[in-house]
């Protein structure tokens, strides 16, 4: 990064300016953008040091590393934006291993012509999310692609953390008899996003549930160190997550429709579009699988936390070599909860 100082450097025009190819060239324009936007917003010792990489101190223990690319469209939605989403997403991925997230790295691929005002808004939102989560963005990179080759901005975040002693959380550890819990209402994020798609436009007060879950996870592990599995049901929804774990663990699951926490507006929006809330994305929820004897204690711990107030026990892991996830419907019958095939599309039939 350049440290040359000129007599007077015209500040970046965040109000009306747009990203152009020079911002990605690695020269003066890049340096200025990094300095006036990223360093200023994230504001920490590593970025201020101005090196390409960050030297970090890791406590002893098993390290967890996770990474996520964020390509959400629209970039701004009720309850959040691609910026805070990218922080929460990776913080959560690290947390789902039972680890406390410690540091983040962030890369930006910017499309030529992207408004700097929007970029600033996104970066400031990221910075606020990182501060609130107490997980600093310590290093990053910026590239620019030609107009038409990027959807405004793509953000990739990578996070590291350390797993405490005695914690062994893995998708393969679900066992018959274990309880299955979710931390709150399902489908909020997906519905909030869909309400903005121009060809669907419905009005709703539903907001994305995007949130950093690491403090909730820490509380849960504190109460039940023997938790078997943790995962956040993002793309593909709860159904996909349960099927993943069932496959990894070589067992089946039974869940009860009447115990699933779903907001009435989310149900209604899904009815309109012919979608199943089980497959709709969540960005601030987790699934926990724990021994049956710990279920009530775990539930109480979750409900005591602001991000787990609507937590519920929704079912059990069962022995099933075929690994089916089944649901007892409110109606009284049983049905499969299968993997999602392709993208869930609205339907008229």
């Amino acid at each position, binding site marked *: 990064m350049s440290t040359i100082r000129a007599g007077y450097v015209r500040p970046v025009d965040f109000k009306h300016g747009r990203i152009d190819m020079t911002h990605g060239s690695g020269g003066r324009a890049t340096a200025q953008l990094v300095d006036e936007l990223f360093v200023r917003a994230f504001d920490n010792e590593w970025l201020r040091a101005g090196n390409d990489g960050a030297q970090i101190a890791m406590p002893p223990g098993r390290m967890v590393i996770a990474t996520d690319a964020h390509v959400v469209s629209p970039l701004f939605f009720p309850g959040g934006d691609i910026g805070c989403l990218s922080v929460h997403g990776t913080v959560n991925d690290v947390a789902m291993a039972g680890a406390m997230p410690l540091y983040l790295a962030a890369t930006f691929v910017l499309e030529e012509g992207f408004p700097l005002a929007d970029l600033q808004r996104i970066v400031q939102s990221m910075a606020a999310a990182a501060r609130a989560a107490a997980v600093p963005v310590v290093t990053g990179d910026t590239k620019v692609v030609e107009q038409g080759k990027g959807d405004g901005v793509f953000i990739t975040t990578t996070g590291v953390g350390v797993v405490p002693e005695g914690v062994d959380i893995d998708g393969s550890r679900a066992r018959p008899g274990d309880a299955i819990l979710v931390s709150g209402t399902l489908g909020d994020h997906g519905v909030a996003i869909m309400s903005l798609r121009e060809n669907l436009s*419905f009005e709703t*007060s539903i907001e994305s549930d995007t949130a950093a879950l690491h403090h909730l996870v820490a509380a849960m592990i504190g109460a039940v160190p023997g938790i078997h599995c943790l995962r956040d049901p993002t793309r593909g929804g709860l159904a996909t997550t349960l099927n993943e774990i069932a496959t990894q663990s070589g067992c089946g699951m039974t869940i009860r429709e009447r115990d699933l926490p779903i907001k*009435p507006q989310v149900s209604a929006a899904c*009815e309109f579009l012919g979608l199943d809330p089980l497959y709709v994305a969540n960005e601030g929820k987790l699934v926990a699988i724990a021994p049956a004897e710990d279920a009530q204690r775990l539930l109480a711990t979750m409900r005591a936390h602001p991000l787990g107030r609507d937590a519920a026990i929704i079912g059990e892991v069962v022995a099933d070599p075929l690994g089916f996830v089944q649901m007892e419907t409110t109606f009284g019958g049983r049905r499969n909860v299968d993997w999602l095939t392709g993208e869930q599309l609205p339907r008229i*039939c």
Partner: protein
Amino acid sequence: MCLAIPARVVALPGPAEAIIDVDGVRKRISLALIDGVVVGDYVIVHVGYALARLDEAEAARTLALFAESGARLAESSRQ
């Protein structure tokens, strides 16, 4: 077939248009296919058009018919 859903009319913003509400989710739909809709009516909505008004009295009657099944069962078990 034909995903359609009963929704309550909460506003009539323009000729042959309605705002409908289902549990707080609102949408603008067309009334081009039915006449005489007033705010408070329930309509069946398919692909953005109201196809029919929902007869609330009949709905209640139908639900009562379902419950009757249980009554018959109770009766027959008493015999």
